[in-house]
């Protein structure tokens, strides 16, 4: 902005409503910074927690003496922490965008056949190529996106109901098709090798994290996060119906498709390596709206940070609580559904169902 600042000779009183708006913004900004600090602290804690040299939290000053500990932190725990925070942010952000764009607080990418498509694609890749991270990612992204496109085309062909209803119905149908396809794949999978891989992948987890996986999925997730965060205010407008959105100067169909595509690509990227991690995309946006209000200008960034916090917490607990690892998807489902029930039992809601 190169606009010349107008200086008032006398300090004029600002409209109290404008002041209020500014104060609320300031408050939300502080909350966001607070959450980021919390995330930073949790990252440090998570890096130091584990089963080496003994189960528990290592002394940070021991790293300089213990080279193996340094290597474990750098090459085992750090990539895992990175995948957890960015994966959590992407899942929560995608869930938030799906909820806003379909004006439906109960959807996440699990609708519209995205997750089921990705699961089918991953299982197919495991059977055809064995447990190859790259092939799983390519195949999961391809089929996840196919799920979205198939749902979209099918919804266009339906000759009844509103657009949202048609899309959700076709999403259910496409999701069911992919699920039965997955069952068929499991039926044919070798029970001693592939079937176990598929089953374990479906539970969701980050135990196989490495720098090479980070390099292969992080760029997609970063692009997703940047685009979503940059369009945060505009996403509000896309929660209006198409005709109204058109009347305030938007191209609703085009902008919705673009954002859904972006959210889907990010989701399949994390799904391809972490497996099916449910509930993050559904529950985190609700918590974020409770903290920041419904305006996506803050609720979306809030979702990203809260999603990162949530998944990192779950993953850290999952690998430290027991001597064996608790699959991430199981933990997120337990904690997520508990929080969901808690939210529903409280009277005040941020959404109308």
């Amino acid at each position, binding site marked *: 902005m190169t606009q010349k600042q107008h200086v008032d000779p006398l300090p004029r009183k600002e*409209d109290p*409503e*404008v002041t*209020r*708006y500014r104060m609320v913004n300031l408050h939300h900004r502080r909350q966001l910074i607070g959450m980021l600090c919390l995330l930073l602290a949790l990252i440090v804690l998570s890096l130091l927690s584990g089963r080496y040299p003994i189960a528990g939290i290592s002394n940070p000053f021991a790293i300089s003496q213990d080279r193996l500990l340094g290597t474990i932190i750098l090459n085992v725990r750090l990539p895992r922490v990175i995948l957890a925070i960015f994966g959590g942010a992407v899942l929560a952000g995608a869930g938030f965008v799906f909820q*806003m764009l379909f*004006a*439906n*607080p109960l959807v996440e990418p699990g609708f519209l056949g995205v997750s089921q498509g990705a699961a089918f694609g991953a299982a197919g890749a495991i059977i055809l190529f064995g447990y190859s991270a790259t092939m799983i990612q390519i195949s999961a992204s391809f089929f996840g996106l196919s799920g979205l496109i198939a749902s979209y085309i099918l919804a266009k062909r339906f000759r009844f109901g509103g657009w949202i209803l048609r899309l959700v119905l076709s999403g259910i149908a496409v999701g069911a098709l992919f699920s039965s396809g997955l069952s068929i794949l499991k039926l044919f999978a070798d029970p001693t090798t592939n079937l176990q891989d598929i089953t374990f992948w479906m539970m969701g987890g980050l135990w196989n994290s490495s720098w090479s996986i980070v390099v292969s999925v992080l760029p997609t997730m970063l692009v997703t996060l940047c685009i979503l965060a*940059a*369009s*945060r*205010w*505009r996403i*509000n*407008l896309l*929660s*209006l*119906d198409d*005709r*109204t959105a*058109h*009347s*305030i*100067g*938007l*191209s609703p169909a085009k902008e919705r498709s673009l954002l859904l595509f972006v959210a889907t690509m990010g989701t399949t990227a994390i799904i391809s390596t972490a497996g099916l991690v449910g509930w993050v995309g559904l529950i985190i946006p609700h918590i974020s*709206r409770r903290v920041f*209000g*419904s*305006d996506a*200008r803050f609720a979306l960034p809030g979702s990203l940070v809260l999603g990162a916090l949530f998944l990192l917490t779950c993953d850290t607990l999952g690998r430290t609580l027991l001597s064996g690892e608790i699959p991430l998807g199981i933990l997120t489902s337990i904690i997520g559904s508990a929080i969901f029930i808690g939210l529903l039992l409280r009277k005040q*809601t*941020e*959404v*109308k*169902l």
Partner: protein
Amino acid sequence: MSDAYRLHSVAFTYPLASFPAIDHLSLSIPEGRTTALLGPNGAGKSTLMDILLRWKKPDSGTVLLFGKPLEQYSKIELGQSVALVPQEESSRFAFNVLEYVLFGRSPYLHQLATPSAEDIKLSIEAIREVGLGQCVNRSVTTLSGGEYQLLLLARALAQGARLLLLDEPTSSLDPGNTAMVVRILKKLASRGITLFFTTHDPSIAAELAQHVAMLRDSTLLYSGETAEALTPELLSELYHTPMQTFTHAGRLLVGRK
């Protein structure tokens, strides 16, 4: 007097439909005045609104908006010139009134921008203008039907358009709320904003509009000054049922016979 909209021989047929929804319609909507669009159910009122909004593209004919062909407007330009007040809208998300009215500023904001201090100031002014000054921070999910209608008006005002298209602005309101909305609409009209609204209540047309357009069987039945349009003969022809008009305390009232 110049025209806000000028339609010439506009036709539109829905895909798979056997007859046109709008058939060779020619109509002028005068600028700076209030025009009511009357017509029975299925006469093509909604389709006409959609065409004026450029939400539907006519199969043939021309539509001029402030003298310029409608299709030559950019999305931004159109959003700055024409605002819509939809009939029924509800938000599933608990935006507060200010956040919701700010949506109207979108034609002035870049794709990735967030509202500026100026947008906030203008939106608050619009909220006060429609009399919702006490509700700036209330959640839109808690507003009554009448308040919601005022909220949509405030959003249209924040849009800064010279022309407002209103879908049945009073059809779902009780008499008290209707009076409130009518009062605000009169105030906006007196500020020189062109209003064009659909209604099933000719009495509201008589109260608000200087100009009436009547749509029947997909085409224009009559268009002219309110006093000349709202006659028992024309109204009976329009609605296929005997109608009568009364004048009481200087106000024209319309009812079935």
